[in-house]
């Protein structure tokens, strides 16, 4: 009888551990979590070797931060919460794509402002030039036209004369 109970406990124990391990493995292999982890780790900068992401870097700090990301994913934190956690400690620089805020709004909008202002200046410049050329064309007086014609006629006679 005692042996039977012990055996039952043993088998139960083995089975239970198996279920636990399977659950753990499933969590670690979960492609969605893996994808989230990769996404977060590639979007955050390693502060030690600044042009590498936490995903790429071999620095000790990157290692710690990778662990930190994993822990927080398992703890049920959202992506935004994890990014905020990093920004609170290391500043906006930790993100490869910083959020738009008061301090950096000019960097985001600036190029478009330059494009629009430049485009407007260009349009105006071209228009002014075109108006001027048109004005120049119209401004020829009758006397000027006759003089020009006379010069052209003369030129023609001279050329003909030269041929003979």
């Amino acid at each position: 009888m005692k042996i039977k109970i012990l055996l039952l406990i043993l088998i139960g124990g083995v089975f239970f551990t198996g279920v636990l391990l399977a659950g753990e493995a499933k969590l670690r292999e979960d492609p969605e979590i893996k994808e989230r982890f990769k996404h977060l780790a590639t979007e955050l900068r390693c502060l030690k070797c600044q042009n590498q992401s936490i995903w790429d870097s071999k620095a000790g700090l990157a290692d710690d931060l990778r662990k930190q990301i994993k822990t927080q994913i398992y703890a049920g934190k959202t992506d935004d919460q994890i990014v905020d956690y990093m920004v609170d400690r290391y500043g906006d620089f930790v993100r490869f794509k910083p959020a738009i805020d008061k301090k950096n709004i000019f960097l985001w909008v600036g190029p478009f402002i330059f494009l629009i202002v430049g485009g407007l200046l260009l349009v105006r410049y071209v228009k002014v030039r075109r108006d001027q050329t048109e004005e120049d064309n119209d401004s020829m007086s009758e006397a000027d036209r006759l003089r020009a014609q006379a010069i052209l006629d003369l030129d023609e006679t001279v050329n003909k004369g030269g041929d003979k």
Partner: protein
Amino acid sequence: MSRRILPISVIVLVVVLLGFFYKGLSLDPKLLPSVLIDKPAPSFTLPQLHNASLSFSPEEMKGKVWLLNVWASWCAACRSEHPLFMRLARQGDFPLYGLNYKDKVVDAKQWLRELGDPYKISISDLEGNVGIDFGVYGVPETFLIDKEGIIRYKHVGPISRKDWREIIEPKMKELEG
């Protein structure tokens, strides 16, 4: 008149951009501004290096202006600021507290035995978790914390005599006021 606007605005733009480049390119990209300046120092409780049964937490330091120096025995640059700390500690009451970051207790103790121990208390952050809370990215780093427990200044890299004389000492005096 309108013909001049274009060349003038181009020249102004180039000058402004050159100004930005001059300023931007002469900054050290390794020095990151800390987001913790003027914020309360993160709270923690960690064992002391020399006696792990005793703990330390920054709350104990309320009412004092103090320095938290993050160091490690594996950190080569820490050796270059160490003689200055030793001198200041010998000269008098120097409120320097050491956060031994991602180190082995044995190595850290050995290092202090060899080079001298300028710290009032050394704290063990073996996992580096407190380091993360303080936004530490390059050892050594030193935080200046005021009487209310607010971080007033952060120095990244070894502190030179000049840094001490011109920046940190005046700031400490001002905070002690």
